[in-house]
């Protein structure tokens, strides 16, 4: 076997992952963007986005996945997502209330509508996407640490 097969799974899995991972990511983004119009939203979309990175990790091994999204970056995006969400909530004070939907609501069932709700969904997707990925990484790394000690 050549060197590129040393890490991760077999060639079949790698090829399929290479073809589908972009679509999975795109589908996650779609779910996030249409959170205020159709079932789904920040949490569901965020999980799907995280799954695309986890897929890379499963198929290619952790080094390749960390090249796309390192642990520090995951931790940073998680915090940024939470701060964005809180920031949107605090901006509601400009209209007098915490969490006030202060933006123009627009026309119902159009992509650009519902005021702050799409923005909240995006913030949640950062938080959840990075968070689920970080949880998966934590489980992987803990396992490797235990193996090293034995």
């Amino acid at each position, binding site marked *: 076997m050549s060197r590129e097969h040393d890490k991760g799974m077999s060639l079949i899995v790698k090829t399929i992952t290479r073809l589908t991972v972009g679509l999975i990511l795109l589908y996650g983004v779609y779910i996030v963007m249409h959170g205020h119009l159709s079932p789904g939203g920040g949490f569901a979309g965020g999980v799907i986005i995280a799954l695309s990175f986890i897929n890379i990790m499963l198929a290619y091994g952790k080094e390749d996945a960390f090249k796309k999204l390192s642990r*520090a970056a995951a*931790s*940073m995006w998680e*915090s*940024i997502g*939470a*701060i964005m969400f*809180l920031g949107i*909530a*605090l901006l*509601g*004070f400009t*209209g*007098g*209330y*915490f*969490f*006030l*939907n202060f933006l123009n609501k627009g026309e119902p069932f159009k992509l650009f509508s519902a005021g702050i709700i799409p923005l909240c969904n995006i913030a949640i997707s950062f938080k959840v996407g990075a968070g689920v990925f970080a949880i998966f990484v934590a489980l992987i790394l803990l396992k490797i640490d235990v193996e090293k000690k034995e």
Partner: protein
Amino acid sequence: MTASSIIPLFVAIPLAGAFITPLIGKKVKWAPDVIGNSLTFVLAVLSIFSVMMVSSSGTIVYSVGGWMPPVGIAMVLDGLTSFMLVTVNLLAFIIAVFSVNYMEKFTSKAKFYCLFLLMLAGMNGVLISGDMFNLFVFLEIASVASYALVAFGTERYELEAAFKYAIMGTVGSLFVLLGIVFLYSYTSTLNMADMAQVLMQKGGGNIVLMVSALFIMGFGLKAALVPFHAWLPDAHPSAPAPISAMLSGVLIKSLGVYALCRIFFNVIGMTADISSILMFLGALSMVVGVFLAIGQWDFKRLLAYHSISQIGYVVLGIGLGTPLGIFGGLFHLFNHSVFKSLLFLDSGAVEYSAGTRDLKKMGGLAEKMPVTGTTSLIASMSIAGVPPFNGFWSKLIIIIALVQAGRHGYAFWAVVASVLTLASFAKVMKYAFFDKLKEQLKQIKEVPIFMKLSMSALALICLFGGLLLVGAVKIDFLDKATDVLLEGTKYAAIVFKGIG
């Protein structure tokens, strides 16, 4: 922006701090300390301000997002809430000061303050929430943060304790969630005030009995009442000392006792049956806790068992339901959070300097560590109910209330538990601080300045806590909180009047 805009800040400020700390804490070494301490200081000031707001304008209801309750989510600031907010945030600030030096020996301060502030956000959220489901969400935020904090040392026994705590805590949360689900299906609303009104109109049925049982199990587990206490003696000693102080001092009270009182007094409505169940559980915890404590040789484990016992006093007083009983219970809640936090901080100081928690390996520490020794003595006298320290007054009030209500049996057990507490702390003081100095402890030094500062501050509150019983402070701080529980299900009408 009106004055009521500070209500959501009790959640927003610690939440913002919790997520900013890991972002910049890794690069800037001093940032976590500064953020943690300044934010908790701001919260403590805001909480004192909230007491003044309640005394000037009564119950204030905040509609999140401008949606009016009962449709929208409500945040309610009344006497009981502001009383608990002061207890939680003041203690959090003093404990954050203690952590500046103490947490040096752990590697990651940024993570510590992140979890600490997250737990604080959860507790404040539970206190200000006027919505049943939000209460559950914040309860989970605080609980999950505390599971992680118990495991902070990541040694074998700490992980075991955290795992046990997480499992039992989750079961407790599940009972609470199930209770909320049943109530929601029965009343079709989640707003507490609205729920109380619907329950009054529809009357209680078997479902309310079922829900009461679920809540007593769920919140009783969070409050560590005796049949549900098994997680506490493992979890509290395993956490780092500031967190033990936080868990024993305020977490079991805001998640357990406060939520129990709020729901039983203001939403479901107190009945004679629930009152006698609460009193029985309280008395049982009081006596069993102290009997288990007296044989312990691990300093922190002994303190943890005493937390169970003292929570018993609080629940016994509040469960009695008379004005004086509730007053005494709430006053003891405040006092216990002060002296138990102080005792845990002292145990942390001893561990910091002498490197042990075993009472048999200590001895004569008062000579080498005068501040720790003195503050421990004050806190021990307070918890044992020796005049003139604060614990004496609140225990006295609870016992007087029991005698007035004709519950002489419970009053007797309250006195017995108090005497046993004194015996147990006499043992602590003798073995840890007043005995002959051991050879291997000759080299130890007193703890650094910030730890001394925070311990002294708490000792002063212990010493002058009795002054809360006189003058305007009593009326604004304690009486207002008692009134909230006494008004019972009239809470609903008061909250609806306060919407604005």
